[in-house]
């Protein structure tokens, strides 16, 4: 593009030079006036020449692409946030279960799974590596809202 512009600039400058020279050489009077007028027309045509070839590229706003990009990105970011939030809820819930088990005199390792309901991740199920304990099971039901049927104990029974 720069090269084309340079060529165009050069041609305009050279033409200006030639037209001015012509004006100087022509005798004063009507002939000079006609020459100057013709020269101006030729120069104007030369200046505006690129405009005829120029295809102005007005920016186009593709609404469909814009809207689909927004929908895609909302889903992606929402999903990513939900995933991070759920992981944190699972980790903190498991920590709470271990603390409660210790309070009850048990040594338990727990893995809590959460499920998103109405945009909020809530503890859903738990897997514990210890035999069933009635007190802890009751606490899980009351405190974390995890009913016995979603509690997996090491001895297999809910």
């Amino acid at each position, binding site marked *: 593009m*720069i090269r084309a512009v340079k060529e165009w*600039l050069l041609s305009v400058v050279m033409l200006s030079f030639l037209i001015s020279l012509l004006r100087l050489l022509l005798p004063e009077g009507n002939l000079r006036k006609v020459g100057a007028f013709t020269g101006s027309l030729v120069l104007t045509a030369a200046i505006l020449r690129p405009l005829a070839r120029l295809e102005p*590229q007005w920016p186009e706003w593709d609404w469909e692409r*814009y809207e689909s990009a927004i929908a895609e990105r909302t889903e992606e970011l929402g999903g*990513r946030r939900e995933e991070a*939030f759920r992981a*944190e809820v699972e980790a*903190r819930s498991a920590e709470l279960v271990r603390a409660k088990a210790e309070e009850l005199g048990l040594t338990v390792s727990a893995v809590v799974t959460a499920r998103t309901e109405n945009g909020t991740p809530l503890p859903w199920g738990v897997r514990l590596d210890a035999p069933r304990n009635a007190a802890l099971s009751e606490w899980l039901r009351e405190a974390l809202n995890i009913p016995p049927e979603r509690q997996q104990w090491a001895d297999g029974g809910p």
Partner: protein
Amino acid sequence: MGRIICVLAAALCLTGAAGAAWEPGAAARELSDALPEAAGEYLDGAEYGASGFAGGVARILEGVRAKVGGVVRRRTKGAAAVLLSAILCGAVRSGCGDAEQTSLCLSMAGALSVTALTAGSLEQLIGLGWKTIGELDEFSKAILPAMAAAVAATGSVNTATFQQVTTFFLVETLLSLMDGFLMPLTYLYIGLLTASCALSGNFLEALADGLKKFIAALLTNAVLLFTVYLSVCRILAGAADGMAVRAVRTAVTNTVPVVGGILAQVSESVLAGAGMLKNSLGVFGMLAVVAACAYPFLELGAQYLLYKAVAVLASVAGMPELRRLIDGLGGAFGLVLGMTGSAALLLFVSLLSFLTAAAP
């Protein structure tokens, strides 16, 4: 550059849950790779904490100050050559009298020499401005998704999405407006100026003036319109986020107290982590934009001011036609400066909006 990656990775690692689905090292590398060349030079070793912005700006200014001498010397050489040709034309005119033919010859010779002397700088500086705009575009593609992820982690998913996607589209639109329309018009403006100087006393000068005003108005209004659109999008998306969060809060209050407590703790922790990430990235992004523009602004600004000064001196030297041409060429450098500044401003405003986006 290595230190930039380390500092960024450390900032991203500190974000805890907010960065859970995002590998900090890879993200830092990606950001650092997209960093404009000039920005990397100034930002090596800078801190990106909340208080790091002032320090970063000071570092950039220090770097720029070290280059001022060289740039001014280089640009002054070119401007001095232009001034010399104007003085020579003025001297010949005063020696040969003020006849019409002599004036016309001198105008042509002056216009030719000034344009020829400026052509190299014009090509170099337009190239520099365009390169900077391209680099800012590339950088926006790396920083905006990262910022959007951080803002979304605070709960403002709609705000983050609208902000990111709209900025992408606006930058793309602004670039195509510059490339397909404003740049060709700037070249046309330079051509008209030269021709009007060579053929003094014609309508081309008025046409060139009008064209310059049109380019400046189009650029200013486009940036203004884009900024307003971005702000409106942010307000509307913020309202949608607020409604979504209210629905979640209602759901939380309906759950058992222990679960509610866990959710509140997690919310706070995610919010704190995401807030830190957002601030670090925002400071880094804004510093990068400032650093990327510092050198091109210095070059273009120096050229613009020198040409304006030379234009005044050319008038004193007795060549008012050349004053108009040199002043106009300075204006062309100003237009390129304006285009580079517009792209930077749009990205800067977008980053600032991300930074000020409050958790709903």
